[in-house]
């Protein structure tokens, strides 16, 4: 039997593919305020501002070889089709699950074409992790407790995810109307400018008290935010439960309204 393995006619370079802005996600007029709360609760000892991140990304990209930047890794037709699915306005997302489903066919797919050679796209010179969109119940062999929204795993040049590969990043999706940039700035402002660490273990007690007070005063918006922040911390707890003890990072993937 002849195996037909057609390589798509790529016409977008890695540099161009990764430079484009993300397509925005429409939001339904009445969106859910429900948060997913995990049973795996863990507080962190110290919170620090990652203020070198922008410089790190810029520096890294300057060091990417020209041959990697110019390599053609994706097709314009596929890109437009994937972007259309994100901005599709007929049934706008109303909850966290919908937001996640909108990004599923876009962010992981684009990343894997650019980073790990999906569909025989040329591999970059350095190694990257494979990104996978996780569906509850769809990956029964996950080696973490709970179900993260996205997982990055060390697949060693294999562009496809396998549940038993060591995880390197867990990705969590939050509703953009519940977790806003202002809310995150509010959290970051609590870090002492002199570099004193914020003790989250203890601060949770204060946040819970504030949460209660805001709810008593009818400030539901702030109250809801605090609730959401607890949820984010809860998800971080997944890290401790990694069986393989791999090093991990996490990116909170943010989306537009």
């Amino acid at each position, binding site marked *: 039997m002849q195996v037909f393995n057609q390589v798509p006619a790529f016409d977008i370079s890695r540099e161009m593919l990764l430079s484009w802005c993300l397509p925005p996600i429409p939001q339904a007029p009445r969106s859910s305020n429900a948060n997913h709360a995990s049973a795996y609760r863990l*507080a962190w000892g110290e919170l620090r501002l990652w203020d070198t991140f922008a410089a790190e990304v810029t520096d890294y990209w300057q060091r990417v070889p020209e041959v990697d930047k110019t390599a053609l890794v994706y097709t314009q037709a596929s890109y437009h089709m994937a972007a259309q699915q994100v901005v599709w306005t007929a049934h706008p997302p109303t909850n966290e699950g919908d937001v996640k489903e909108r990004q599923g066919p876009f962010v992981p797919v684009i990343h894997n074409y650019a980073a790990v050679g999906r569909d025989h796209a040329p591999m970059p010179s350095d190694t990257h992790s494979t990104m996978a969109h996780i569906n509850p119940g769809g990956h029964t062999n996950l080696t973490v407790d709970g179900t993260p929204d996205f997982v990055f795993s060390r697949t060693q040049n294999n562009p496809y995810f396998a549940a038993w590969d*060591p995880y390197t990043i867990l990705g969590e999706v939050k509703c953009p109307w519940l977790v806003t940039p202002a809310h995150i700035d509010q959290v970051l402002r609590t870090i002492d400018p002199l570099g004193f660490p914020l003790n989250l273990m203890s601060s949770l007690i204060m946040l819970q008290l504030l949460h209660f007070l805001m709810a008593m005063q009818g400030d539901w918006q702030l109250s809801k935010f605090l609730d959401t922040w607890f949820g984010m911390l809860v998800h971080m707890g997944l890290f401790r439960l990694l069986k393989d003890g791999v090093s991990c*990072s996490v990116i909170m993937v943010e989306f537009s309204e």
Partner: protein
Amino acid sequence: MQRYNGGILRMTPMYGDFFALPGITHGAETEGYHLPINFSIMKALYYISYLADAAPKAVETPLHGVAGQVELPMSSPQTGQPAAQIVQPYQHNQGHMAPVAQAPGGYQAGVHIVGGYEKAVSLQYHEGVTYKSLKFEPWLKANCLGVKTWIARTLPDNEKIILKLWDAWKCSSDDQEHEASIYLKLRPLWGKYVPALRVQSPLEFYHALIIQYIEVIPAVSFYFWMC
């Protein structure tokens, strides 16, 4: 966000680079997102993917730098050693890590810590065994027996024990002391009908009890063995 050993979390502001689309959004900047300068979100993801893939495996380690090893601050009044204490929160002090002095009433710099714990009960009820060092690996699922209870091992003997912990920054020692008192009342039954209490001690910032590990044969196996 990026996690470091020792419970440290590094976090960026919320970046966004999505474009304006009529009827959907006026764009990332209008919505208050931090605009990435000289990079895009997908490039940032590409960088993080590289960073994470290149990072070595990081096994959880305690402050002493030995994987899974924790030390009990066992003290003996006979030897004149200072009384054991609950470890308090740390904060930077001119570039060095120094313990926070505990203010009266348990409040320090807006942080609420339960109790002062200048002294904590440190008692051993099992002679002949050293409980000073333990191998404690809570990240291994096989060691987790519940919300507060884990399997650990004594070092260097490698004997299995049960470790029950209460977060001392959130809980007073009441629950630990109450449970220890129940075990002490049942002392004649230790090792026969109830597991023996081995140690009552602080462990870093926890109230801890060390209890005898008893291997239980599942009933179904016993049934088949009888047949």
